[in-house]
């Protein structure tokens, strides 16, 4: 009985709660990447650290994008799911710039701004998800 319930939860369509959790993960990744970017922008960090940590965070975003894109989804949250996937991919690309130019102060401040914009979009999506359809 319990096993069956767990199996269903794993294979069934993506629930609103699961989607919300995925979006929250994106929000945390964006927040952390923003802290890293600010270090780059103000030249207060090390390039190797930035590169490795940015790569890890970009992988997190890509992983989340993949997970959400692969899940089957019911009609009512399909649109939000697609938005979440798009945001995750934007996040991956933006953090990727940090990985490519970990020593550039200009890239740092640009990425900081871009991540701020993404974070706003993530917040809006979260609000829509928690307020219901």
């Amino acid at each position, binding site marked *: 009985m319990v096993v069956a319930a767990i199996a269903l939860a794993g294979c069934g369509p993506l629930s609103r709660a699961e989607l919300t959790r995925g979006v929250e993960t994106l929000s945390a990744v964006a927040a952390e990447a923003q*802290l890293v970017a600010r270090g780059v922008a103000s030249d207060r960090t090390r390039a190797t650290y930035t590169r*490795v940590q940015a790569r890890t965070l970009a992988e997190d975003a890509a992983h989340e994008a993949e997970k959400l894109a692969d899940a089957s989804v019911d009609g009512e949250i399909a649109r939000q799911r697609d938005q979440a996937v798009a945001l995750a991919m934007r996040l991956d690309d933006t953090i990727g710039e940090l990985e490519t130019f970990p020593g550039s102060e200009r890239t740092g401040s640009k990425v900081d701004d871009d991540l701020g914009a993404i974070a706003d979009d993530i917040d809006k999506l979260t609000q829509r998800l928690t307020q219901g359809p």
Partner: protein
Amino acid sequence: MKAILRVALGLIAAIGGFVDIGDLVFNTQAGALFGYELLWAVPIGVVGIAVYAEMSGRVAAVTKRPVFDVIRMRMGLSTGLIVLVASLFVNLLTVAAEIGGVAILLQLFFDAPFMLFALVGALGLIVIIWITPFEGIERLFGYLGLILFVFVAAALHEHPDWHAVGGGFVPNGKSSTLYWYFAVGLIAAALMPYEVYFYSSGAVEEGWKPSDLLVNRLNAVIGYGIGGLLSIGLMMASAQLFEPAGVEPDHLGTVPLLAQLPYGETGLVLALLGMLFAIGGAAVDASFAAAYSIAQFAGWEWGKYRRASGAPRFTLAWLLFFALGLAVLMTGIDPLDLTEYSVVLSVVALPLTYVPVLLIARDRTFMGEYANGPVARVLGWVYLVVLCVVAVAAIPLLLATNAGGG
């Protein structure tokens, strides 16, 4: 004064054991998710591990018996064997996790493939252990691990609201399952028993006598006191810097940001170095703990003071644990997942090694006038209860929260 200078053993046991990959991650996550609200769990863990270490160090100084000597003699061969196998399993997960931690930190310094650095890190540690005498090892990792104080400085730098900090030392009764999972995880991460196997064996390595009991007490109090301070510093800094920003630290590489944000590149480098020595020390602690356990259980000659050729099977055992740890990492398991499981499983197994030590520490046949006094007696029994509660609660909480994944 001389006694104060001899707290190196407590420092490596506490810093390279207490503040290991598990503590660095759990404390930072706890601060990021719950602010100051889990601070109370730190002193519970710290006092517990200090009580356990003090008793085992006292037993070792008086009777020359480290923990697995006591286990074999008190529990006999068959029960002792179960405890040995359980401890070695947890130890292996821990060694693997700590080597993984070293590899991640090297990666953050030099950016090269993880597996390469796991190999380099493990070989580097093996060479250091091989050429350095026991006292040298504990000083190297113990003293250099003190660089982690950069996190305490970071916590103070942000001008904490002391009223709120104080409130964190009272448990929050209304909170979620995840909150209690973290509470148990924090206590468990502090109570990793391999530190105590290492500590009590180290007391024999250093030839402690009953006249060294003051040194033992200072080691337990100062060593773990400092470990606790570092944990509190990490949690406070994380509560101040990560919680408001909405960061959920899921990587070891996130932790050094806590020092980078206030102190820039210098802070970052210090944090990485301190973590490298603390986690490297923990890898040494854990692999030695495994070798000590096997050798003491089987009665082999053991000890770094014997040199490799004087205690060959013991030497082979710690080398083997480095190799096995690497093999576990090669399977591709995330070191942080390993950490989580090793912490939770170790607390489940903890009462098994705690009970025999408590029993011999109070036994006047073996301890004479150095048997548990009133304070040790009360704390010893109180912590037996605490340990059992934590051990029983750990697994259901792990499952209920999907290993903290929410």
